[in-house]
């Protein structure tokens, strides 16, 4: 009997469990798009260079094109379809909409998922390459436009909506800070 080239697994996506049989070659990105019909996660390069496929895996941002679906079992995956609370947009989504943080919209789900994680990473005190003083006692850096640009640089936007994306991330971070 030839070795099996597929497996049954259960993926947990946006709080729902999906049991499916996947070809072992299937990436998490393709499983989401082609098998679960969650096409909000985009395929821009399929090799980890553009960030369009960014999702949250156990709360951390991650490019879904560079991991196999079989390796995602047991993880909690959040895609763009799962970040709003019902009809109420996530503050990052609302800010992107209000400030026109996109043009064609294709990089947008990845930008938004990345931004959600950026705000959390920053709130947790993580430094970036743009952080001047990285000593723990220096405390968390202010989430300046420079910090946002550095932290968002894994997400390309060919339309060049960067200026309004940075504004949107800053506004969302402010509103979340105010809510906290």
């Amino acid at each position, binding site marked *: 009997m030839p070795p099996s*080239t597929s497996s049954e697994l259960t993926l947990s996506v946006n709080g729902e469990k999906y049991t499916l049989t996947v*070809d072992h*070659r*299937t990436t998490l990105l*393709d499983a989401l*798009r*082609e098998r679960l*019909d*969650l*096409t*909000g*996660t*985009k*395929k*821009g*390069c*399929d*090799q980890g*260079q*553009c960030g*369009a496929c960014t999702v949250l895996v156990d709360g951390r941002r991650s490019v879904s094109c560079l991991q196999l679906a079989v390796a995602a079992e047991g993880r909690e995956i959040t*895609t*763009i*379809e799962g970040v*709003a609370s019902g009809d109420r*947009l996530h503050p990052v*989504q*609302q800010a*992107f*909409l*209000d400030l*026109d943080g*996109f*043009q*064609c*919209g*294709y*990089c*947008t*789900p990845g930008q*938004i998922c990345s931004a959600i994680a950026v705000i959390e990473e920053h709130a947790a005190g993580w430094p970036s390459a*743009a952080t001047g003083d990285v000593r723990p006692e220096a405390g968390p850096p202010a989430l300046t*436009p420079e910090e946002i*640009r*550095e932290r*968002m*640089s*894994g*997400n*390309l*936007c*060919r*339309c*060049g*909506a*960067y*200026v*309004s*994306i*940075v504004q949107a991330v800053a506004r969302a971070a402010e509103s979340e800070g105010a809510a906290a």
Partner: protein
Amino acid sequence: MTTATRGAVGTAHTRVEGRDKVTGAARYAGEIPFADLAHGWLVLSTVARGRVRSVDTEAVLAMPGVLTVLHHHNAPRVTTDYVGLLGVPPDPTVALFQDDRVAHMGWPVALVVAETSEQAREAAEALVVHYDREPHDVAFSAERDTEAYPADGHMPAVVEKGDLEAGLAASAVVVDERYTTPEEHHNPMEPHAATARWEGGRLEVVDSNQGTNWVAGELAGLFSLDPASVRVRSEHVGGGFGSKGVRAHQVAAVMAATVLQRPVRVVMTRRQMFSLAGYRSPTAQRVRLGADPDGRLRVLEHRSLNLTSAVYEFVEPSAAAGRSMYAADAHHTASRVVRLDVPSPTWMRAPGEAPGSFALESALDELAERLGIDPIELRVRNEPSVGPVSGLPFGSRNLIACFREGARRFGWAERDPRPGVRRDGRWLLGTGTAAGSFPTTAMPSTAAVTAEADGTFTVRINAADIGTGARTALTLVAADALEVSTDRVRVHIGDSDLGPAIIAGGSMGTRSWSWAVTAAADELRRSLVPGADIPPEGITARSNTAEAVGALAQKERHAFGAQFAEVAVDPATGEVRVRRMLGVFAAGRIVNPLTARNQLVGGMIWGLSMALHEEAVRDRSTGGLYGADLAGYHVAAHADVPPIEADWVDDPDPDDPVGIKGIGEVGIVGAAAAVANAVWHATGVRHRSLPIRPDRVLSAGGDA
């Protein structure tokens, strides 16, 4: 009709499809589900020139899930003997699998179709293709001009006025410099994707493109079909920039759907896009300017060389950029092409103007330096009252108004003109400016507007929203034309069954479509009887702007812009950082300030990216590109982009029903020159080859 409302046009409005885009609900071409869908994967040549000797299909056909392998022995026949919507014959590159010829590296030689994309991909990678190699020639440089020839593209190749040599002899100062720009690729974020199927005797294609009736017409031409039997839809498009017309993926999908009689999807990989999606040719340009001591130009000569493929002639008309910009007694401009064994180049955002303005506006800055005249003042002194070559009146110009407003906001008056004298720690600082323009055009389009029984209005116009905000802009235009609020207007776009309309390209989409929508809305208002009931099917009025557009008087019609940039250059590493940019534009009536500003800034970021980052490097030995992906080809990322502002002066086009000119391209024009001029101001070193890479800054002795 209800309460008269006007004023939607000119007021910021978030995108009508914005919620769908931020929630992931908007579906792009490769995301529409189809029952019984098969997946095609293109196989591209691994040689740059030669013949396909054989394709070993047997082993691949035995692989799991593989349905067929199409290649030049078994693919459906197509013809290229037709002229498409844009008045040109197709690039033979899209006539897939018709013979054994390989004309460039990455030429499509087969399509593998399988039940799943994983199966198709593995089979495509396993497919062995044997070639008879022939020597190839991909080496582009200014020296190739001896083999080049002048070619008309969408502009005349050569325009000459006045005596060049006499003008140069009489000039007090002559600038004579050579400039180069590299091969550049569009790289829209959404790769080209199409799904084709036959349904009830019609060919249906769900695609990502810049004009569905353009692509439908091309497919009808290629496959010798009745145009009415082809329907192409393209609701959401993840960027285009000139690359999304008829391409290999649609043709391959149609072939496979025809052979298999089931839906087939073909999606380009990012790497495949570098040989299948078109690109901007590299250019080698020479500019000669001759001027009087007061800066008045006696001579403007601009010669540009670009490459094209062995199978298709495409001209990047870089030399045409100056024909509407500056007056000179002797005014000679010529664009030439040389044929090489490379993929066919194509339109890419501001074709001609983007690379041409880099050379011309850099040369102007060099002239200003030599004359000791402020670069803005130099442009003021050469401001023409009529078309410098044509003698035609300008529709409107307002370039100097852009410079005045830009200079005020940028703080230009405080600028010390001396180069290489400002420091901020390790950084040398400089500022630069440049002008830009792009032709404004209206093209015939049709539209239908329906008054619905529930008091709403439905607009049907075959526009394409490739990120421009066209769907939203047309909603505002229709609301004003109907004198209703925007929430009562629904706009349907992106479907060839909506009827003919011009493409999203050439900065002419929103203007052309708005004209058609306005005309249909006006017609509808005339036919509605106040207080009368609307029947259940509604009342519809239609428009066709062919006659009105054709009646436009001949004028110099352009959008203009003044670009400003501040840069910091690290002479130790050669790194150039743009610190801020400002663009002020005279670009007609701005329909939606929110999306327009975004689009203009996006164009300026393209200019920044062109100035500092973008460069596709062709390997002379293989004929292919080094690093043909988004790691090897860097486009500006978040960290590269500083605060950038775009604004505009009042400049409604008097001959357009809405006053629109078009803003898709003017944002990039001149932006790279402004950055390069700022690098000179920072360092005292001129960079005449793009991109201004760290190694170029270092080897030019950036620590001036």
